[in-house]
């Protein structure tokens, strides 16, 4: 991480004077705390940071940060963030969204912001439920989830946020967990350092309407068998005893026990910089209990951002033909003079 050349920020500097209104025990608290911590080291002054959100519990986030903030409308935060970045490439723009906000009503905007590679950092707080509207199933709820709007169990196939982001050509894609504080902080810092659109899915516990959905990834007794921590250039090993790994079998991934003829060399190596997101896509589709769910950076590649491309077109044109001249613009057609 680049050290800040500025007067160092503390997490306290980043706390706003607004009262926080999330339910006690909500995973959002932890994310807020790690965000404040992460931002103390990214080298961006507070006034240059902007948090843009949609609507949902998680989207209250901007009010709690002593930065610039814009709490917008349901699902559309990526569009406001895109306009902000186009106007002001000097600002660091974070988008906070929920699984309903980002993938249901705003699915369209999310994929388009990612494909354009707008330099925004999208944090999708996934609690597999609609919190603010009090507990309806969401586009990430598992099949059969019983909620007030799915009393017999949900029958809509869930979306996998990471797969969506990869399909949308996102240049940075990661997953982390609300109470895995170290990992969360690191992931936020990596997103901050990424140039281009970064997408982070955060497993977030909704204490009230979906308590414990991600317990299998946080409960110490089972977590290591259910979560694969990805590291660039390292083999995909997991398990309490580090005795399991992920191997390619045909066009699918499989979990294998190491030993009994299976060598570490047989396992997949993680390459977050691969040009094609083929393997990353497969990783994004690993679901418990058949396979561990991966956490970490699935993809991190560089390509020009929308803002850069827009600026370059402008600069090239101005270089070739000079800056725009109003007088000439007005007269760029056949003229006639009336005396």
């Amino acid at each position, binding site marked *: 991480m680049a050290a800040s050349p500025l007067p160092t920020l503390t997490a306290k500097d980043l706390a*706003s*004077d*607004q009262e926080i209104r999330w339910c006690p025990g909500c995973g959002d608290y932890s994310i807020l705390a790690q965000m404040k911590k992460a931002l103390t080291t990214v080298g961006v*002054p*507070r*006034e*240059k940071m*902007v*948090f*843009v959100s949609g*609507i949902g519990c998680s989207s209250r986030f*901007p*009010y709690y*940060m*002593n*930065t*610039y*903030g*814009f*709490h*917008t*409308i349901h699902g*559309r935060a*990526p*569009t*406001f*963030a*895109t*306009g*902000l*970045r*186009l*106007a*002001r490439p*000097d*600002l660091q723009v974070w988008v906070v969204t929920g699984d309903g906000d980002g993938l249901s009503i705003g699915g*369209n*905007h999310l994929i*388009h912001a990612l494909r354009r590679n707008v330099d925004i950092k999208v944090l999708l707080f996934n609690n597999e439920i609609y919190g603010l509207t009090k507990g309806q199933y969401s586009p990430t709820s598992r099949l059969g989830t019983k909620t007030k709007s799915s009393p017999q169990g949900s029958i809509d196939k869930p979306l996998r946020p990471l797969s969506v982001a990869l399909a949308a050509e996102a240049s940075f894609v990661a997953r982390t967990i609300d109470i895995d504080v170290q990992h969360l902080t690191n992931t936020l810092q990596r997103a901050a350092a990424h140039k281009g659109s970064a997408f982070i899915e955060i497993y977030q516990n909704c204490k009230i309407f979906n308590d414990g959905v991600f317990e299998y990834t946080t409960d110490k007794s089972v977590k290591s068998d259910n979560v694969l921590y990805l590291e660039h250039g390292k083999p995909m090993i997991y398990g309490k005893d580090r005795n399991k790994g992920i191997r390619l079998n045909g066009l699918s991934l499989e979990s294998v026990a190491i030993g009994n003829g299976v060598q570490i060399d047989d396992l997949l190596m993680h390459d977050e910089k691969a040009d094609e997101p083929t393997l990353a896509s497969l990783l994004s589709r690993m679901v418990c209990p058949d396979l561990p769910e991966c956490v970490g950076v699935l993809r991190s590649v560089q390509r020009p951002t929308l803002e850069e491309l*827009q600026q370059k*077109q*402008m600069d090239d*044109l*101005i270089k070739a*033909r*000079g*800056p*725009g001249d*109003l*007088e000439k*613009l*007005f*007269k760029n*057609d*056949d*003229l*006639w*003079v*009336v*005396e």
Partner: protein
Amino acid sequence: MSSTTTAPSPSASQELESVTIRFAGDSGDGMQLAGTQFTNASAIMGNDISTLPDFPAEIRAPAGTLAGVSGFQVHFSSSDIHTPGDVLNTLVAMNPAALKTNLKDLEPGGILIVNSDAFGTSELDKARYKSNPLEDGSLKGYRIIRVPINKLNREAVAECKLSPREADRCKNFFALGLVYWMYERPMEPTLKWIQEKFSKNPIVLEANTRTLKAGYNYGETCEVMPVHYKVPKAKIAPGVYRKITGNEAIVMGLVAASKLSGKDMVFSGYPITPASSVLEGLADMKRFGIKTLQAEDEIAAIGVAIGASFGGAIGVTGTSGPGICLKSEAIGLAVMTELPLVIIDVQRGGPSTGLPTKTEQADLLQAMYGRNGECPVAIIAPRSPGDCFNMVFEAVRIATEFMTPIFFLSDGYIANGAEPWSIPDISKLPQLKITHPTAPNGNGDVKGHENGAGELGKFLPYKRNELLVRPWAIPGTPGLEHRIGGIEKEDVTGNVNYEAGNHEHMVKTRAQKIANIATTIPDLEVEGSQSGDLLVVGWGGTYGSLTTAVTRMNRKGYKVGLAHLRYLNPMPKNTGEVLKRFKKVLVPELNAGQLLLLLRAKYLVDAVGLNKIQGKPFLVSEIEAKIEQMLAS
């Protein structure tokens, strides 16, 4: 004049004050192009001009069918004109379908130029003619000029070695050449255009040049045309002129506003007829620092524009009626967060997809009320293509001076229609002074506000000036960090606040802020009689027909005035007073009575509507007839 007493020689020339001509043909026949070229030539001749393009919603309906007819009407004159003309003096019909759909607009005794080669049985069948109108006597009342355009055109381009299909594509220029001769138009502008357009394709360049000249020569040498006509230059205000359409004027106005205010501009739109050419035009303005984005839909487009405004740029979005529906929620957010935003609505026939290529003025109430909650926005409307330039400038001024979304209600007729535009003197354009705070505005008054909001050194995003406008503090400014959003605000601090009394206070404050715009706009002027028997009140693109009708009524001695509203919300301060000066009030609109409803509700005036909902502009005669009827009763 010719000295012969028998049939006039081909060179006989007659002077006319003004002429309305329509080119009509299949949508593949190049009628829009022919009409545009004719318009340019007339403008350069020094005539006043007004045009009305009319094209089908289908890009290419089957050739020769009634659904595929495309027309372009030009009114050119030696006097000041404001409309594309009520009735046609001349109709050029390239096929039976064009004849059938357009003949009703040709004046009795009018000139009808037909492409006689296109009247075979299959073409007649496609146009659902039971017998050939060229032979069955049904066109008796017109001066028919039959020209075998297909054949003559093919002969003209024979040496160019084009395929028959390619050759036929030039026939619009043959027809154009003929009409150029008929009305003594100069061919040079079109020849120059052909040169530039086809410089990479010398064969096509040659073919079009030849056929244009052949059409002209055909007129000159052939006896089918008894006479040709001259329309002298118009006496219009001195200046340098060009032709401009409404959408072109919007583009130029926005560029000028950005440049003269020294502010960045971000425009985001999603293609929709008839607004697309604004997006296209601005996309080509990168050398002026204008940034554009073709968004994934209209919701995204307005989000991008609002995000840009939050960042301190001038955010602009543009669309037509269906797109406005999608933008409604975001407009509400811009009202709540009090950010500047220009929303261009090029209206078309609705509801829903409606009449995509036809004009209507039916989004006024949507602009006024089409959102949840009490959600006032400013609304202005240009009255002609050239006026789009002035009014879009005004839109930027109001949006930034009052921190509000503003609707700019144009329509398909203004957007595509063209008129002469006197090129403005840049040094005389209004200056836009836009400022952003750089220091906290807390004044030490902490009473009544939680969180010590009024503390010195605090920034209060909703502390207002004397016109109730909040400051436009932009991200990146140290010490002014603040959060805004769609949830109700506490007065002054902008903190989230759900209290009953605060909400009512804020609703009223937002409404009063919009009402305060009236202190910065000109009074409503009346044209014609300043008081008397009848006042015509209109808005937007109907101005041309209304002013022409009122002028004629005044000439006939009636005491009739015209008040044309360019500011619809708020309306000029003297509107009520103006309405009271007349015994009767007539409100002609291309909708079922939307301004009428607003005027009756707000000013308790017993106004009467004249409502046309046909996707077409008013004819002057329709307005005159209604005025006469009202005066007689």
